[in-house]
């Protein structure tokens, strides 16, 4: 297997966490709720996954427990941000701080212990035998297929091909109008922000079970923020978000390949490439999308609480 093939294989695995978290954030934002707590949720997910996998020795049970923790967090977040209508930005930031804090606290005794089990590669018959692509794309673990193919396709069909999807998008764009035609705004927002939180937490669990295998303080290291940025930079398009996620996975991997190839760049800079590219990524799409700003904009009612009495 040559270097480029392996590099792409691991780019897909490394990028999975960011992509899953950004899909969660996308779902939440499409229904008009900004969830800035992804970083904390990913930390919580990661720590839950490591504790669960060390206790039950089964990655699937670990993922299910991670989803459960995500659901509980989601319900708390949704009660604060949607029912009580507290400021969404502040709620999100509070979740980030709380999540990271709790994760570091609970995870202290588990730091550095390697997960006993992890997600095994599951090559797809026939497709995995295609020469290069077969190895890169179709010889991955099942979570990779879920993150890159099944979840985005399902979301695409639900959001853009069904009446329900139209309703959700309407809630994100103009909740008053949606409410006027009988769409249950609060219920939809509650459900999708919970779903977003579950995916965010699952992203942390995925990191432990598919790519890092061990917990340490500061494991997430800004990936949650990058996921939130990806939604905005990907201009709310799933395809762009996924491609950018893989690109970030690639950047993470290339830093070390650079050292192996003895590039005349100091290791410190190579190790911080991810953050450098996050900044570059934040700037460039703005130039490209200048003339098309309407098409690329965020949901109009993002971050706006819905008060029925104000209609």
């Amino acid at each position, binding site marked *: 297997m040559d270097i480029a093939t392996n590099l792409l294989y691991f780019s897909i695995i490394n990028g999975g966490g960011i992509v899953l978290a950004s899909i969660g954030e996308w779902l939440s934002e499409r229904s008009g709720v900004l969830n800035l707590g992804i970083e904390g949720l990913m930390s919580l997910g990661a720590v839950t996954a490591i504790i669960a996998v060390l206790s039950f020795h089964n990655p699937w049970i670990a993922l299910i427990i991670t989803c459960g923790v995500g659901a509980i967090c989601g319900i708390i977040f949704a009660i604060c941000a949607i029912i009580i209508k507290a400021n969404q930005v502040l709620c999100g930031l509070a979740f980030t701080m709380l999540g990271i804090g709790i994760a570091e606290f609970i995870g202290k005794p588990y730091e550095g212990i*390697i*997960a006993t089990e992890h997600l095994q590669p599951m090559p797809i018959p026939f497709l995995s035998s295609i020469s290069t692509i077969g190895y890169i794309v179709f010889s991955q673990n099942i979570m990779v297929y879920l993150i890159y193919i099944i979840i985005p396709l399902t979301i695409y069909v639900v959001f853009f091909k069904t009446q329900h999807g139209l309703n959700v998008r309407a809630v994100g764009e103009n909740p008053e109008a949606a409410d006027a035609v009988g769409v249950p705004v609060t219920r939809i927002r509650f459900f999708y922000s919970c779903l977003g939180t579950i995916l965010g937490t699952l992203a942390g669990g995925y990191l432990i079970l598919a790519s890092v295998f061990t917990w340490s303080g500061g494991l997430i290291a800004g990936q949650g923020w990058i996921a939130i940025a990806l939604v905005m930079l990907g201009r709310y398009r799933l395809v762009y978000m996924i491609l950018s996620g893989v690109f970030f996975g690639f950047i993470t991997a290339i830093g070390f390949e650079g050292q*192996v190839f*003895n590039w005349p760049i100091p290791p410190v800079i190579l190790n911080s490439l991810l953050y450098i590219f996050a900044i570059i990524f934040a700037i460039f799409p703005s130039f490209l999308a200048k003339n098309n700003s309407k098409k690329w904009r965020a949901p109009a009612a993002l971050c706006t609480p819905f008060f029925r009495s104000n209609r």
Partner: protein
Amino acid sequence: MEILKRRHFIGGIGSFFLPSYAQAETTPLSSISLLPQDGSIAFCYSGPKTDGGWGTLHERGRLEVSKYFPKLRITSIENVPYSIQATRLFRYLIAEGVQMIITNSNYDNFLHDVSNYAQNVSFTECNGHITTANLGWFYLDHWYAFYIFGYISALITKTNKLGFISSFPIPSVYSAVNAITLGARKINPLINVQVIHTGSWFNPKVTIQAANALCDQGCDILLSIMNDMSYLRVAEQRNIKAFLYNNMTPPIRSKAYINSILCDFSNMYIQQIQQRMNGTWNSKPVLLKLGQDYNIFRWGTSISSTIRYQATALYENILRGYNPFQGPIYNNKRQLKVTSNTTMKNIDLYQWNWAVEGVTGL
């Protein structure tokens, strides 16, 4: 409000210098003996104590110390960063009345500044390079163990490429990588060692990424000096082999595991603390010896008896006094650095700061 006058400034400047003058007059108190109930010792770790490697090992040493001195007040602090925060922590510990600070990593000037300021406290740092009246260091002559690891690697490798996951380009890393390279090239002069720096002692995420990058490059044996052993999982996945660094409970059943350095710091710690209590402590560096304070014999089940036999022969040779670090040794720019008939002494090996021929990335 009182108006500031010149005399206030002069007084202020004067009082700024006063404490440093007063300190210069203080006599070192580290020679005064202590009663166990009055003693207070602090252990500071660069990573967590649960890392299953370096941190766990030191923590076990600390637990042995607290068993040996049950009345002594012993604290341990994890994840001490290499920054001014470390200095702040050491100062805080001193203010709390700690009489001896032991660190499991090299904090260099962050510790040196504090040791100058607190002459009555004893400081011992692992892998340190500064020795003053109250600051000493300890380390293990790991280059002999790594030489044997290099030698074994040469018997196992098929690609002639060994990968080394390093933290920072510091002398202990140079000596480890150089020893591996010399040991491997003793058998097969075509072997190369590729080094990757991760920029930290404990960061499993980057360790795994570095291990993957080394595998992509064709390395079929991984070695490291990191605190954790997360790269073993990469080795298992990629069907290659790995040596571990400092694991008390090496996973001998793992198909990727070859061998590990097993070090026991407890005797050294107890000795140092006993000396401090007796008032006989001095800052003389301590170098732990292969075969006495640390060992390398927990083989993985996948390693054949022929390889074990050859390694044992070399090991016994080294214990008998054989020093494999003999000239001629060239650096990686093909310049002769150690002439023939010259043997590198332990202190030269400890302060090694150039890479030998066959090392890339260092």
